[in-house]
C-alpha cells in the first residue's frame, strides 16, 4: 500500500536519509528498528507529511504522492502516534479525542452529548476502561496513550505508525496494545512499529526493516531472522556479552550499603523493607504504578514518607533529604533524564560536577579549571561522545546524556546508586555500554538498586530481584529463580490468586 524508493533527506550538516527503500503492505505489522539517529523518525516524518524528501518517490495506494503537509497525509488515512503525547491536559478525554473534529448540532455548535457518546464507543473499541469525562491530564501515561490511539481511530485509518509505543507501558498494558494492533492488522490496516525492544518485535511483527546511519540495511520476514542478527545489523558489529556476567557471589554477611526499613508513602508504598549489598545489582521489578519510583523518591527524601528509616552502611540517615543521602554516599538517577536530571542550561562539565560541587569549592569560589579536568576524566571514563567539557547537553543522544548523569553520580557517591529506568530511551549500542558501566561500578563495591520495567534487562543484569506489586514487596528472587515468568507472576498476581 505504501512504497518509498530512493528517499533522500538532508538537514544542514547532516545527511539524515540516503537512498532508503521502504514498503508496507496492507494488513502487515512492519517493524522499523535502528539505533538512535539511524533515521527512523525522519523516515516516519516523511511518511506522515511533516518533512518533504529531497529526492525519491512515495507511492501510496498505487499512485505517486508527494505530501506537503501532515493534514494531507492524515486525510489519506496515515496516522502517527508519537512518543510524546500531544493531549490538552485540561480538556476531557472526549474533547481530546474529537479535538478539531467535534460533533456538531444542527446549529453548528459543539454537540457535547454526541461527542461523549462517540468517544465512549471508540474507547470501548480499544478494550480499555477510561472515563471520557476525566481530564486528560490526570490519566495514567498508559491511558493517555490509549487516548492518543483513539484520536487516530475516529478517522478511517489505513496506515498507523507507532513510535516507541511501549516505552511507558507495563506488561498487561503492552498486551492490550498488541491485541489492538492485531485487530487492526486483521482489518487490513498497515502498521509501522518502531521499538527498541526486540522481543516485542518478534512477538508482534510480520517483517522488520533495519536502518543504520540513514541507510536501509535489511528487510527480513520475522521468521527468517533472530535477535542476535538484528542487533548486529543495527550496530553494524557483533555485540558480545550484551549483558556482562553477574557478580560471582553477593556477600550477604556484610552490612548492606543501603537498607530501607518499613518505608511507606500514603497510597503508594506500603511497608517496604529492602537491602542492597555492596557489589550487587538488585533489580526492582513491577508494573507501572506499583510504587517503585515512589519508594526510591521516599528513600532519597524527595517525597515525604509516612514512616520508615533509611540506613547507609548501617548508619541511620535522619532526616532523609537528597543532600543527606548524597553526603552519605547514595545517588539517585531519575527516570526522567531531561525533566529532572540534566541541567539543559549548563554545559557538560557543570552537569558532571553538579552533585559534587563541594569538591571544586575552595572558600566559596568554584575552580572552573578543576571542573573541566573532572569532566574530561568522566568523558574518557564513560566514552561520552560530545563536543567536550564546554559543549551543550541538550542535543546529545540519550545514551550520552545518561552517561553524563552516570559521571555526575559516580563522582558524588561511593556507597550506592539508585537507578530508575537507566536505559530508557537509549539505543542498543549505548545500552550495552551502560550495562557494562553498571557492572563495573558494582564490581568496585557499589551497591546498585535498579528499577526497570524491561524484564529482559532485569533478568540479564540483576544478581537478585525484588518485585513490587500495589505498593508492597511481593517477592524476592535469587539465582536460577530469576526468570521473566517468575517476575511477571509476582508483579501481576491478583490478591485472589495469592490467597
Amino acid at each position, binding site marked *: 500500500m505504501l512504497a518509498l524508493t530512493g528517499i533522500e533527506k538532508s538537514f544542514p550538516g547532516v545527511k539524515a536519509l540516503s537512498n532508503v527503500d521502504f514498503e508496507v503492505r496492507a494488513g502487515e505489522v512492519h517493524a522499523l528498528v535502528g539505533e538512535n539517529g539511524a533515521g527512523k523518525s525522519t523516515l516516519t516524518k516523511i511518511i506522515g507529511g511533516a518533512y518533504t524528501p529531497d529526492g525519491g518517490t512515495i507511492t501510496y495506494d498505487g499512485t505517486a504522492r508527494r505530501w506537503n503537509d501532515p493534514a494531507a497525509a492524515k486525510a489519506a488515512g496515515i496516522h502517527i502516534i508519537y512518543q510524546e503525547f500531544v493531549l490538552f491536559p485540561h480538556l476531557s478525554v472526549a474533547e481530546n479525542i474529537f479535538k478539531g473534529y467535534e460533533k456538531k448540532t444542527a446549529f453548528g455548535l459543539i454537540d457535547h452529548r454526541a461527542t461523549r457518546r462517540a468517544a465512549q464507543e471508540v474507547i470501548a473499541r480499544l478494550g480499555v476502561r477510561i472515563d471520557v469525562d476525566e481530564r486528560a491530564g490526570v490519566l495514567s501515561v498508559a491511558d493517555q496513550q490509549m487516548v492518543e490511539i483513539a484520536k487516530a481511530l475516529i478517522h478511517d485509518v489505513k496506515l498507523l505508525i507507532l513510535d516507541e509505543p511501549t516505552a511507558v507501558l507495563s506488561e498487561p498494558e503492552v498486551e492490550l496494545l498488541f491485541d489492538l494492533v492485531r485487530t487492526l492488522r486483521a482489518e487490513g490496516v498497515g502498521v509501522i512499529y518502531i521499538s527498541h525492544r526486540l522481543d516485542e518485535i518478534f512477538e508482534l511483527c510480520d517483517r522488520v526493516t533495519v536502518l543504520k546511519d540513514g541507510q536501509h540495511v535489511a528487510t527480513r520476514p520475522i521468521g527468517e531472522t533472530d535477535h542476535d542478527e538484528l542487533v548486529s545489523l543495527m550496530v553494524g558489529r557483533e555485540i558480545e556479552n550484551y549483558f556482562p556476567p553477574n557478580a560471582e557471589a553477593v556477600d550477604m554477611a556484610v552490612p548492606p550499603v543501603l537498607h530501607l526499613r518499613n518505608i511507606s508513602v500514603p497510597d503508594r508504598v506500603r511497608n517496604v523493607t529492602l537491602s542492597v549489598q555492596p557489589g550487587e545489582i538488585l533489580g526492582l521489578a513491577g508494573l507501572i504504578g506499583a510504587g517503585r519510583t515512589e519508594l526510591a523518591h521516599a528513600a532519597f527524601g*524527595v517525597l515525604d514518607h509516612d514512616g520508615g528509616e533509611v540506613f547507609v552502611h548501617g548508619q541511620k540517615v535522619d532526616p532523609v533529604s537528597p543532600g543527606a543521602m548524597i553526603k552519605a554516599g547514595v545517588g539517585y538517577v531519575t527516570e526522567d533524564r531531561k525533566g529532572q536530571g540534566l541541567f539543559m*542550561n*549548563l554545559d557538560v562539565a557543570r552537569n558532571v560536577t553538579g552533585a559534587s560541587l563541594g569538591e571544586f569549592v575552595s572558600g566559596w569560589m568554584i575552580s572552573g579549571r578543576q571542573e573541566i579536568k573532572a569532566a574530561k576524566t568522566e568523558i574518557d571514563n564513560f566514552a561520552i561522545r560530545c563536543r567536550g567539557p564546554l559543549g551543550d547537553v541538550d542535543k546529545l543522544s540519550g545514551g550520552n546524556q545518561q552517561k553524563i548523569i552516570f559521571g555526575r553520580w559516580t563522582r558524588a557517591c561511593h556507597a550506592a546508586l539508585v537507578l530508575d529506568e537507566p536505559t530508557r530511551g537509549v539505543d542498543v549500542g549505548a545500552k550495552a555500554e551502560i550495562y557494562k558501566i553498571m557492572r563495573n561500578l558494582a564490581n568496585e563495591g557499589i551497591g546498585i538498586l535498579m528499577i526497570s520495567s524491561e524484564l529482559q534487562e532485569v533478568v540479564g543484569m540483576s544478581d537478585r530481584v525484588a518485585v513490587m506489586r500495589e505498593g508492597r514487596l511481593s517477592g524476592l528472587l535469587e539465582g536460577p529463580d530469576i526468570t521473566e515468568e517468575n517476575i511477571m507472576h509476582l508483579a501481576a498476581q491478583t490478591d485472589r490468586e495469592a490467597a
Partner: protein
Amino acid sequence: MSGATQTGAPAFGGEFFARYGIFLFLALLIAGGGLISPSFVSSGNINNMLVQLAPLGIVVIGQAFVIISRGLDLSVASVMATAAVMTSLYTSDNSSAPLIVASALAMALGTGLVNGLLVTKRNVSPFLATLATAIMLQGIRFWMTSGAPSGNIPPLFKQIGAGNLGGVPISLVIFLVIAVVFWVVLHRSAYGRALYIVGGNPIAGRLVGLSSDRVIIIAYVISSTLAATAGLILAGFAGVVDNFVGRGFELDSIVAAVIGGVALSGGRGGIAGAVVGAAILIAIFNLVLLIGAPVQFQIIIKGAVIVLAAAFYIKKSKS
C-alpha cells in the same frame, strides 16, 4: 565572557552571534550615534551617560539574579524610593549617615525576605508578590513622609551621588565595584552555580541536594539590597527627594536584563549582558534627546528595542 563559561562554548557563527551580538550592538549604537550627533561621543556626554548608567546598572544586576532564579522583581523601584526618602528622615548633617544606611539596608533585607518567602514558601507568583510589596512600601513611604518628603539630605550622600574622584564619578566607581563583586558571585561562586541550576531545572537542583528555596530567597534579598543602594545614590545625585525616586526602574531593569540575554524562563544569561543591556537603554534615551526628537520618542524606541530583542533571542533559541 562570563556567559560563555556558564552556558557552553560557542560552536559556530549563529551561537557566537547570539552570545556576543549584544556587545556588537552596543558598539554599533555608540559608533552610529557618534556619526549622527558628534556631541553624543563627547567626553562630557559620555560622562553624563555613565552617571545615569550607575543606578540602573546596579538595579539590573539584582534584577538579573532574580530573573535567573525564574522570578521577577517589580518592587525594586519602590525599594529605591523608600531608601531615598530615608536620607531626609533624620538630621541633615553627616552624623545621621550610618543610621540612614542601616535603615535602608534593613528595609531592603526585609523586603527581599518577604518577596522570597512569598515566592518559595507560599508559591505566590513573583509578579504578584513583588507587586504587593511594592505597593505596601509605597504606603509606608507616604506614611513616613506624611505625603511629601521634607528635610535635607546629608551632604555625604550628595558627594557620593554627584561627586567625582579624580574626574571619575563616585557613583560609577561604586557601580563598577558592585558589578565586579556580583559578577564573581554569579559566575564563580557556589551560590551562583546553585542559582543557575535551580533557575534552569528546580527539580534536578533538588535531586543534587540544593535547597532551592534558600537560593531563591537570597536572590530576592540581593535584588532589594542593590535597589536600596541605587536609591541612596540617586537621592544624592538629585539632592532632593520625592516619593517616586526611581520611578520606572522596575520595568527598565527587566527590559535591560532581557535585552542583555537574561531569559525570563530562568537559568540563562549573565551580569555582563544585563549591564550592557542597561547601557543600551541609557544610550538610546540619550541619543533621542540629543538629536532633538521629542522625549516621547524615548518610549516608542524603548518598546521597539524590546520587540527586537525578544525576536532576536527567540529566533536564536529556535535555531
